[in-house]
């Protein structure tokens, strides 16, 4: 184990995988500028600064992947993915199927998002659910430095196109990271961050920490919360969520992305279709609002799910054990705004 930031863990994963497999290629606006050591060790042919043109970066990755390379592209911020949407959704996601399996598309797309830096809606937009909805793609969004390393390595080795989302605010958080170059984290496996019997808190990325803090506070008040970090959004670890739910009977899903047709909707739907009998209370979604992210610190903070809101929701659910019929707002957005 080494202590390092998530950013360093990602860098280490890139380095190890480039070392391991000569087909791995890194492309993007500034990747060579920002990672001079990789240029030094692997050469300019494999670490390529690109023109400022996301569509061709992604398209080139698709073409290269179909030809047997394993490109990793850095498209910087998630909203810029909109320029690469055709290559990702219509080409990478569909052409394996349409070709009847003749080609594979082992490529990884990196993109940052998330609140905390006041970069506003054209740099911060948690749109991971769009890619979960699209067929043929894998989607991951880790919360710990170890997972940043492990999931990036898995994504690079995966034969499918994978979107790797980085919650910006986590990049400089530190943690223990396995040194082992063979360490990887499987796709489709959630991490149980804390066990408990009363309520299941499901989350991913930065809001896992919110849930952990909430669980801590709940514990102090006699409520045992279980915290699940999805980390892989597609494939989704349905089994772990359902198993927890069968134990606790109560579910709160928390994420920064907005609620409508988001991951929390998917988890809630999963719960009510496959663990209906186990449910002892309404499922609560605590998500970002149906609004772009504002630059102003005051508004950005107001948009983010807060520990308090999670704690309050859990209390309500415990109270609600008899299905008391209190209609809960399904989107506890702007949860820290006095309602």
């Amino acid at each position, binding site marked *: 184990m080494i202590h390092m930031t998530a950013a360093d863990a990602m860098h280490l994963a890139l380095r190890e995988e480039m070392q391991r497999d*000569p*087909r791995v*290629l890194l492309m993007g606006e500034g990747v060579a500028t920002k990672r001079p050591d990789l240029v030094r060790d692997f050469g300019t*042919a494999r670490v*390529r600064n*690109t*023109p400022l*043109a996301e*569509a*061709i970066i*992604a*398209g*080139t*990755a*698709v*073409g*290269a*992947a*179909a*030809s*047997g*390379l394993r*490109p990793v592209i850095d498209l910087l911020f998630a909203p810029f993915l909109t320029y690469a949407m*055709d*290559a990702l959704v*219509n*080409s990478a996601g569909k*052409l*394996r*199927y*349409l*070709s*009847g*399996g*003749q*080609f*594979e598309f*082992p490529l990884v797309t990196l993109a940052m998002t998330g609140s905390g830096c006041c970069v506003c809606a054209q740099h911060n937009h948690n749109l991971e659910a769009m890619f979960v909805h699209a*067929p*043929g793609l*894998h989607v991951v969004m880790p919360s710990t430095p170890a997972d940043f390393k492990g999931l990036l390595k898995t994504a690079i080795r*995966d*034969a*499918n196109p994978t979107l790797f989302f980085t919650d910006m605010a986590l990049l400089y958080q530190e943690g223990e990271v396995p040194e082992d170059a063979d360490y990887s984290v499987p796709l489709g496996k959630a991490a149980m961050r804390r066990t408990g019997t009363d309520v299941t808190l499901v989350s991913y990325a930065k809001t896992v920490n919110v849930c952990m803090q909430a669980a801590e506070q709940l514990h102090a008040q006699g409520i045992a919360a279980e915290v699940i970090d999805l980390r892989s959004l597609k494939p989704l670890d349905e089994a772990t969520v359902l198993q927890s739910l069968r134990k606790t009977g109560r579910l709160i899903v928390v994420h920064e992305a907005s609620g409508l047709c988001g991951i929390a909707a998917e988890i809630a739907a999963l719960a009510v279709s496959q663990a209906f009998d186990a449910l002892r209370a309404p499922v609560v979604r605590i998500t970002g609002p149906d609004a772009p992210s504002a630059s102003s610190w005051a508004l950005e903070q107001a948009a983010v799910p807060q520990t308090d809101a999670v704690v309050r929701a859990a209390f309500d659910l415990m109270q609600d054990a008899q299905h008391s019929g209190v209609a809960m707002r399904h989107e506890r957005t702007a949860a820290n705004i006095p309602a």
Partner: protein
Amino acid sequence: MTATTIHTRLHQLETMLLIRAYEEQLVALQRQGAPGTCTSVGQEACAVGVVDALEARDRILTNHRSAAHLLARGADPKRLMAEVLGRVDGYCGGHSGSLHISAREFGVLLTSTIVGAELSMAPGVALAQKLGQGQFDNGSGGITAVFFGDGAACEGIFHESLNLAVHWQLPLLFVCENNQWQAFVHRRETMADEAISAWARGHGIATQRVDGNDVEAVHAAASQAVAEIRATGQPQFLELVTYRLRGHFEPDDQAYVDPSELKHWQARDPIHTLRAWLLDSGHVDVATLEAMERRVRTRIAEAMQFAQASAWPEPETLTTYVYA
């Protein structure tokens, strides 16, 4: 005029006839309820002239109007037709239909019907060739030819693709079949100039603009371009001026087409021209051509039978191939 030339032209004519017959068969099938297709009628010389200039180690990307490129490359009309009809013996197991057929064994990969997507993916294929690292390519020294239309040249990705290919010095041949139409919109309604080459030249890429209905001219230009790409490692651009003789898609009554323009181009039908040239040469007689036409018809009839006899994919395979 050498015997080789005549032989080459005869072979090219046969391929062009095969393409025409194939497309006409699909038109007939569409009338009976099969899915519609975008035919390449009128553009056969473009496909044959360029593809004949390529080698097996080269790669091809194409688009919604791909049958000519595939057939010129040697793809089997049986399996193509099975694909169009959604049958399991198609090159893509019936998943693709006519619009995105790829055939790995012929190096025809990444066909997309999103106009411009072929341009987006082509640099990556050429990059793999250049790097010689791809499993698929093994540093064979091949080049990539990407076929696209005048419409695709209006998409922004055209600019991005050219810039990347030029700047990264990719072994990439851009082949623009400027057939004057972009679905139901005439080229003149979409751009000020009549040539796509002007845009290409702005990128400093070596560019030729030739008569796309003259298979000899196309073949000569393509051969030169391919040779230069191999020699220099730099991309080249080829604009083939041609015309879409049928509608955009079957069925399409072409009511929006100026009849005099259509007539002008019908008179320049690349197959008629080549046929006439061969007869005029004095080296080929009508009987030879009629025998050729019969061979082609037989192949298409066999393809039809094959396709129609081919099974539907099993519904269980609905999600096969989505993920690796």
